[in-house]
């Protein structure tokens, strides 16, 4: 029983300590939908150079958003980080963010990659091109996302679930460019061309293409870059069979709009209590060293100029990106899911 008492005591002590760390002076508290492994090293670096302690909770963006909403004015979180723009927009709509114009960030981050009303800032850029099997696809047949609905791709496409926000944002961008009806027939055609029912993540789609389950997919580039850089021979074997095609690069109108991109980004919470520390953190995350870290460790494109990207990203070549204001992805998100539901995109 003695052991049990000790266990009980220490568990509760830990619990209340946890409740109180967020209160100290030189701290900034972060709710992050970016995974710990993809943000913590930067936060540690920030703490080491500024002496400001960072407290972190990671989790699903919508769940953290709900937590922010419910906590309201009592929240301890100062910064909200997500890995896609639709959730930043949703947080803005929910009224849990604070508009803060930070001159340093406004000067370095392009207008399209941040909120026009200063509610959020994009911190890394993710491109979602078409990825194909080099040995089975004649690259001349690839043109646009929309062309994947053509009959020649019957049984040759793998797509991740529509549950995934990257696909939702892809469709949201198409709604802006093509309108509801054209988008609906595009995704219906593409879903009809699926080689298998959607399951797994982006990496699984890449592996499926390499294994011959299908010939093309749509995936974020950093997943392919990760396979290229992997120390495992089987990962490299997958990567060697694949190549990136940048769609919608030429032609007329929407066919020329550029490849779909999304950002991971950050925002001030409305009721954050550590304004100066939060500002310092955001400025750090947009600084050249942090941007270089994203590019090197997770193969994401920087949002500021003059930062070197990884070898793998260079290998994918330059591309024209869809210049859409990213907040539109957030605005169109619900409509996108509805269209995907109707098209039977699981």
């Amino acid at each position, binding site marked *: 029983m003695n052991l*049990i008492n000790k*266990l*009980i005591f*220490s*568990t*509760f002590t*830990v*619990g*209340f300590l*946890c*409740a109180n*760390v*967020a*209160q100290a002076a030189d701290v900034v*508290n972060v709710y992050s939908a970016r*995974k*710990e*492994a*993809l943000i913590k090293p930067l936060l540690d670096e920030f703490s080491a150079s500024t002496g400001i302690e960072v407290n*972190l*909770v*990671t*989790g*699903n963006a*919508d*769940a953290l958003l*709900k*937590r922010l909403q*419910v*906590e*309201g*004015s*009592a*929240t*301890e979180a100062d910064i909200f980080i997500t890995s896609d723009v639709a959730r930043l927009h949703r947080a803005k709509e929910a009224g849990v963010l604070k508009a803060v114009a930070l001159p340093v960030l406004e000067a370095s981050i392009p207008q399209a990659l941040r909120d026009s009303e200063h509610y959020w800032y994009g911190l890394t850029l993710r491109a979602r091109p078409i990825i194909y099997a080099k040995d089975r696809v004649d690259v001349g047949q690839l043109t646009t996302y929309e062309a994947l609905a053509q009959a020649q791709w019957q049984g040759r496409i793998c797509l991740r*679930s529509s*549950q995934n926000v990257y696909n939702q944002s892809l469709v949201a961008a198409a709604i802006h460019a093509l309108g509801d009806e054209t988008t609906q027939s595009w995704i219906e055609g593409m879903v009809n061309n699926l080689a*298998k*029912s*959607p*399951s*797994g*993540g*982006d990496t*699984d789609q890449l*592996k*499926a293409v*390499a*294994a*011959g*389950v299908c010939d093309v997919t749509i995936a974020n580039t950093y*997943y392919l870059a990760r396979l290229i850089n992997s120390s*495992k021979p*089987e990962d490299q074997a997958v990567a060697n069979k694949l190549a990136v095609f940048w769609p919608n690069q030429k032609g007329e109108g929407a066919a020329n709009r550029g490849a779909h991109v999304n950002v991971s980004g950050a925002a001030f919470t409305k009721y954050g209590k550590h304004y100066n520390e939060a500002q310092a953190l955001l400025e750090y995350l947009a600084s050249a060293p942090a941007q270089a870290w994203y590019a090197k460790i997770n193969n994401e494109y920087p949002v500021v100029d003059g930062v070197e990207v990884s070898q793998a990203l260079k290998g994918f070549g330059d591309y024209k990106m869809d210049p859409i204001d990213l907040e539109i992805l957030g605005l169109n*998100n*619900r409509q996108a*899911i509805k269209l995907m*539901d*109707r098209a039977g995109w*699981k």
Partner: protein
Amino acid sequence: MFKRHGLSAFAVVIAVFILLPVIVIGSYAMLADGALWQHLFDTVLSEYLVNSLLLLFGVGTGVLLLGVPTAWLTSMCSFPGRRWFSWALLLPLAMPAYIIAYTYTGILDYAGPVQTSIRELTGLGYGDYWFFEIRSMGGAIVMMSLVLYPYVYLLARSAFLEQSVNSIEVGCSLGYSRWRALWSLALPMARPAIIAGLSLALMETLADYGTVQYFGVSTFTTGIFRTFYGYGDTAAAAQLAVGLLAFVMLLVLLERYSRRRARYHSAVESKARADLIPLDGSKALIAFALCLAPLLFGFMIPAAQLLYWAIFEAQPLGWDFVELAWNSFSLAFMAALIAVILAIILSYAKRNKPIKPISTVIAISGFGYALPGTIIAIGVLIPLAWMDHSIIAMFEGLGWDNPGLLLSGSLVALLFAYTVRFLAVALGSVQAGLDQIKPSLDHAGRSMGHSPWAILRQIHVPLMRGSILTAVLIVFVDVLKELPATLILRPFNFNTMAVRAYELASDERLVDAAPASIMIVLVGLIPVLMLHASISRRRPH
């Protein structure tokens, strides 16, 4: 007078408190405007329903086929390896469903070693040969059956063990064969326990999100998440959750009705054990194979694969794994203690005063188990945050410093959520244990002037020690594996092994998730072994 009513009142207060999050979700559901419903109804709802029912039916069949025969064999028959199987068959319980799903996918899908070798050896391309598609409804049913059957096994086995031998003996002396006695006596007598195990497995199946989502099987629960995460519509998600609950209630009522007035406690004290039925030759071999199969596929193969990944391929764990393991362990331990103590109080209050209102409130207090952890978490967060706001206002009124989020921002929120979610597990086991004790013991105790509390402490708790330990074990392991509520409610800088495994897996680094996954399994083994030791001490066999 107070003492007699005190217990009932206390139990009702506890039950209502436990139900608070469910009530919150229920009232949230009233806010939905119905516009989204029309869309869901037109497009995906029927598929969600059909898939959920298929999954329930499949997993239900699976856990019964795996759990009941193994429980019978290890408790009633003698064959080589029986003793070892009797505890080893619990091991799959330590394996979270989403992790076994990731693991088998890594082995069996088109890019895994098995299919890759087939293609390399035969020169065939994908689609030229037939292979089981692991990411499918069938795959989901198999995965969940493999890790959920221990609920049935555990409860059925303790029921078989605690059945007084005399009933079986009487049956045999009346000319029943041993096997006939199984069908006509032992199985019907163990029915409450088997049903309790089955309903735990099915509720867990309904609440599962990780496995079905990974396999691309759209169920009612993935629908709830799509509504909540995708459409950002908490109210509609709450409505779907209430629908799920209504379905569970219906099932529970049906089961209740079907056994109406039957009573299941044994009429005699004798716990003497009958001789085990000896099996030899081919019968022993079949028994061995029947017990080995679930263990092999539910534990050995996936654990070996995880171990291989963890040792040879994954990024090694940092020193923080000690902290992760401690966090997981202490949380699970605390939650198990709380849930089981509450379950004892509730079941005992019901036994003590078996009137409708009390038994109903207690029965529904376990329904949190059928709700996905995320929904429970929101139901917990809302009332706790409200209390926090009141506390902060009070502190400010007194001129004190802002204390922060004492409840919703601390482990209190997590422990509350776990209790709501897993009380059913504890209740199932504790009630089954209590039902086996004759009411005449209570009457005797009361006639000697003891209070209900004293009777509980001095008579019941010692008699149902096995059931209590079982309850502690299952809640412990369940909390260890729990993910969605932990993810939402945990305080700053607090991680568990399940969170770490999930983060790596959801970042599509399955192999790197292996060390944390295998740690969950290893820590989960501790109580399994402890339980085994305790049961062995109690029983000569």
